[in-house]
């Protein structure tokens, strides 16, 4: 314990490429890019399947493969592929070692919660409301934008929270393939015998603190985006029709999926 505190107090651990600020930045970069790509892929698919109800089973099941296969396995499995593709696609081979494999495995990890929650969020919107919107002459796109999306936003953001939390925690494994990020503290520590122990624990603590901090931030965003009528102040019952359009407030994935 004392050694871990010493690790955090050592100025050498706060400076340069191997310092905590730079590793934190690298970690956020990897996680951010992975979440961005996963959103570009997963969100439209989730919204489409959620709005139309078409192809949901297929899309969700395919996406879930990303969650079923361990990220570490994906990381090591794609390494020979990204290395072999380097001359073909014309990127320098070191990119095929790092960061491509970690970005691919983190993106695959992030897609399922984003896609599934977007789908589940839209599905959870009261059908009668959508019919009413349609009856008022709204077009499909308008229904999606002004009726479904606002009501589903807490669940959709919940998907981002799940995805972000998993990615921040798991991106540590990128260090195995020479990647940067907070995982370096853990893996470099593992390689150093007894002296490396504080580094391992410091890395684990940093990752946990980062994950919790980002999750709390997203929880605030989630609350902000929740329509006032759907917010549930503690102790006061929700009003009117919102009782039928029950939407889970937590970040977890809703049950029926």
């Amino acid at each position: 314990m004392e050694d871990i505190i010493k690790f955090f107090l050592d100025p050498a651990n706060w400076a340069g490429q191997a310092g905590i600020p730079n590793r934190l930045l690298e970690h956020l970069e990897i996680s951010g890019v992975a979440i961005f790509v996963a959103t570009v892929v997963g969100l439209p698919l989730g919204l489409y399947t959620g709005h139309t109800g078409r192809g949901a089973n297929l899309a969700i099941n395919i996406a879930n493969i990303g969650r079923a296969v361990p990220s570490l396995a994906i990381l090591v499995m794609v390494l020979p592929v990204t290395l072999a593709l380097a001359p073909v696609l014309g990127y320098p081979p070191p990119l095929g070692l790092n960061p491509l494999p970690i970005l691919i495995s983190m993106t695959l990890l992030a897609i399922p919660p984003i896609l599934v929650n977007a789908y589940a969020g839209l599905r959870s919107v009261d059908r009668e409301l959508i019919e009413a919107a349609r009856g008022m002459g709204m077009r499909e796109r308008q229904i999606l934008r002004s009726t479904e999306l606002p009501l589903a936003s807490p669940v959709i953001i919940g998907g981002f929270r799940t995805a972000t939390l998993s990615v921040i925690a798991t991106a540590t494994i990128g260090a195995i393939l020479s990647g940067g990020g907070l995982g370096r503290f853990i893996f470099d520590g593992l390689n150093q015998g007894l002296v490396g122990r504080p580094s391992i624990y410091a890395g684990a603590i940093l990752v946990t603190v980062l994950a919790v901090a980002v999750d709390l931030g997203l929880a605030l965003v989630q609350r902000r985006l929740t329509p006032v009528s759907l917010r549930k102040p503690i102790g006061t019952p929700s009003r009117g029709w919102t009782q039928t359009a029950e939407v889970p407030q937590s970040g977890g994935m809703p049950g029926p999926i």
Partner: protein
Amino acid sequence: MRTPRVLALGASILVLAGACSTGGGASQSAAAPSAPGSSAPSTEPASVAPKAPIKIGSDNFYESELMGEIYAQVLENDGYTVERKYKLGSRQERIPTMDAGQVDMVAEYVGSGLGFYAKDKITGDGQANAEELQKVLTPKGITVLGITPGEDTNAFVVRKDTSDTLGLTKMSQLKDHQDDLKWGLPADCDTNPLCKGALEEYGITYPPKQRSALGACDVPMAQALDGKAIDVAELCSTQPAISQFGFVSLEDDLDTQPAENIAPLVRDDYLAKVDKTAFAALLDAASAKMTTEELTKLGVLVAVDQKDIADVAKQWLTDQGLLK
């Protein structure tokens, strides 16, 4: 909903950290009363040496498991009951496992094994490394038995095309090309005298301009070398990937790498239960036959030809005339 769970995770990591820092002391004190002298000879029959069941462990890679299996079969052949607990993890996980008495014996590299505790004490002499390692392990109640003549040491390796174009065969030739080459070095190289120190001895400015941190002797390191993501890799001298991919091992012409002979480490509380001299003699006989060539040959059988480790061990022991 999830936040408390994450906090709980954080808390449990802290608890774990606390538990680990006290773990070493507890296991030491537990091992102390079982030092060799404390066994009561009156409970043992005088004529027949007892053959207490032994738990043999190994690290999570083929060579460690192979050596463990060789020792296991030698003991079984002599009438011992062996419980195999292979693939315990890396040294970082295996050492606490053995300290806690979960395994009685494991095959260890004397250079790296010593390096875990005291990196500056490692030398190029295997016997000296074994003696230093014994000094570190005596307070923990662990005995180092006889070492193998063969060793598996770290080697700097390049692709065949790099070797041909640059005319590289020796480590001392690396100096002139150091900035053009992409180096694959283990993450602990900065603090490891056998890595950073060795490179500096060869006149290489550390750290090299282009460097990737990968596990030494690991599969990704070999793959990265093959895929040209790196040009120089630190691998193990008996690693099958070297022959598999046709890599060229650079000669360590300044003898910078430590002696990595292999020796069985046995817990003293186990040795107290058996005839220590006969037990050691059995294992030493097998160790004595394990040369670097044999180790490399067996490595190819296991890691490239995918033969069963137990079969490979049995065949080798039979060929060496070590089974009765």
